[in-house]
């Protein structure tokens, strides 16, 4: 264990025997904003990922949820070194990926793959399905021509695509089938770890369940470890063992699935969960969702202190808007970054009587004469 991890603490469930596969320490990805044509001056930065510490254990599915722009996809890409982190370290089986380059990095990449969100954009439309799925084998010199073909057929069969279609092009397949092809490509190099970046959000409702079931079946079959990135909290609950919630570049809460969904402690997690619509009018009637006012602030100028304080109903002036909260273990295996969580006490966010929030309240009768 390095000094950094003991200091900041990598979020992990203590002592349940699972080995750590991926460990992220103080990961930051800042995209520079430049100005000028010839001499590019750096005038600012998008703080996409701003200090993450967490672990992914062998064989588990870690769900990473958050709203658009919170940095969850950047996190996934930075772990795979598809985007180089600004600072911080990513350990894969104990080795730091951030220091690796060229051949050494490519060798490690064989162990880690990615499934992308949009199956229409992530498959080369000029390559046949056989070439798409076989390309990783070629790149990593894993099989000769005949071996490749046999392996591709086997992979297609595994993901539920007719192996006789390997000479077809992606446009001949439906969205769900294309996503299966993307999954076959990721599996080709026999990885241990797969980053699934919103793998079902581009698919039709009736197809989503098929892909979720496939991912779970493959995990059992091949002992895969997933980082499952999604904005749909119901899906993440269904598939994940542990869940991390991100807000504006930081993890605000991380816990075992059941714990996070049953006793969310961070005000943002509480609000997020209460806003998820439930497909049942009777259940919806009983709920009083917390409606957060305002929008997510820009990651170019994240608010000082806790990034969530501008929308937090429980925020305390002079504390939350000044000090950065640290992600700490508030209960065994349950990590949260909030000043207001002390001991067993945490802020309970409830829906107010005025359910439209402040922005509307002071705006409904602006001149006193609106129709």
């Amino acid at each position, binding site marked *: 264990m390095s000094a950094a991890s003991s200091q900041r603490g990598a979020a992990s469930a203590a002592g349940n025997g699972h080995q750590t596969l991926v460990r992220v320490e103080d990961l930051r990805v800042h995209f520079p904003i430049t100005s000028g044509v010839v001499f590019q001056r750096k005038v600012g930065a998008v703080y996409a990922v701003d200090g993450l510490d967490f672990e992914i254990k062998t064989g588990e599915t870690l769900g990473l949820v958050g709203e658009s722009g919170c940095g969850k996809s950047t996190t996934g890409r930075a772990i795979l070194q598809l985007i180089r982190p600004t600072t911080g370290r990513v350990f894969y089986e104990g080795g730091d990926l951030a220091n690796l380059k060229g051949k050494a990095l490519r060798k490690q990449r064989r162990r880690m793959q990615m499934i992308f969100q949009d199956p229409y954009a992530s498959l080369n439309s000029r390559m046949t399905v056989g070439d798409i799925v076989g390309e990783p084998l070629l790149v990593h010199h894993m099989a000769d021509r005949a071996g490749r073909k046999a392996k591709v057929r086997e992979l297609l069969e595994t993901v539920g695509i007719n192996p006789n279609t390997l000479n077809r092009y992606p446009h001949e397949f439906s969205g769900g089938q294309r996503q299966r092809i993307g999954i076959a490509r990721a599996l080709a190099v026999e990885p241990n770890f797969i980053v699934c970046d919103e793998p079902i959000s581009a698919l039709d409702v009736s197809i989503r369940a098929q892909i979720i079931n496939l991912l779970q079946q493959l995990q059992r079959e091949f002992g895969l470890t997933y980082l499952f990135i999604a904005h749909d909290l119901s899906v993440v609950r*269904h598939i994940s063992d542990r869940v991390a919630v991100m807000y504006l570049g930081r993890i605000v809460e991380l816990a075992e699935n059941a714990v996070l969904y049953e006793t969310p402690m961070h005000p943002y997690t509480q609000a997020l969960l209460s806003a998820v619509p439930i497909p049942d009018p009777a259940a919806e009637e009983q709920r009083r969702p917390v409606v957060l006012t305002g*929008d997510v602030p820009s990651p170019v100028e994240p608010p000082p202190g806790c990034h969530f304080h501008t929308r937090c109903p429980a925020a305390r002036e002079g504390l939350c808007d000044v000090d950065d909260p640290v992600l700490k273990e508030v209960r065994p295996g349950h990590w949260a970054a909030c000043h207001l969580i002390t001991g067993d006490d945490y802020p309970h966010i409830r829906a107010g009587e005025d359910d439209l929030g402040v922005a509307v309240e002071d705006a409904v009768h602006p001149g006193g004469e609106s129709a």
Partner: protein
Amino acid sequence: MGIDQDTLLRLTDLTVDFASQEGTVHAVNKVSFDVAPGELVGLVGESGCGKSVTATAILGLTRMVTNATISGSIIFEGRDLVQLPEKAVRDIRGRDISMIFQDPVTSLNPVLTIERLMTEGLEVHLGLSHSDAIKRSIELLAEVGIPKAGRRVKDYPHQFSGGMRQRVMIAIALSCNPKLLLADEPTTALDVTIQAQILRLLKRLSADHDAAVITITHDLGVVAGMCQRILVMYAGRMVESGPAKPLFAHPHHPYTVGLLRSVPRLDEPRGTTLQTIAGLPPDLAHLPPGCSFAPRCWLADDECWQTVPELVETDPGRASACFHRDLLIAGAEMPA
């Protein structure tokens, strides 16, 4: 069957076909339903089921598509929008019937200020003077919850966030006091916390303005909390309709059952595997001769493959287009 006071909109056998190289695409196939004044209706289905085409037909936009053929009738306040000349429809479109589109980023003209975007409709449809239209625009922006509306009206769309842009869209849609609002996936492009804001706003504004809203979505959760009545479409046909609560609690069509079973729910215990609807939605240019859901249905028999089932009343106010509806009414479960 005359139009009574309780019907604002009545679709009868609306059919929209598009000519294509692959053959005729049957986008909407004999769809009939009523909407009462002020009613909140949810039109649910997957992509390609014809829900958006139905909305564009109500708005009279399909008539501009050269390869489209429309038949059936769309009676709005006693007038058939399918038969009306374009000039008359143009008076209704944007004033009595308006629309909120899915993507607030692409559906607002980026080179016009919010003021220009808003005042256009007010001046054309309501004949307001420019200064009155600006005044009204500011009131509307304030009503949909845009802070400092007086100043923001001079801004361009890119200066607003996604949620705020959708509020602007709603303000524009409401500006001429429409009697019917078509909301096509109004929250799909938005985040969960913003979605909750927008849905509440829509529901409240519908009551304040006494406007009926047809919410078109693929997300059953969105309509569950908002709509009184649900219409389910599959492959261009209406397969089930009824009041929201009983329909969600006890669906009478196997497709609705499958849709509800295949999405994980936050308030239910975690299952290990999700139930799935096998296969894919059919190609609208080559529909199966019988029920279009038959190839994916666990109840399908010979009759289903040969004959298209009609929408038949199952309970008061509820209807299902399934030959095996009695099995479902009796409580037949979907096999795992």
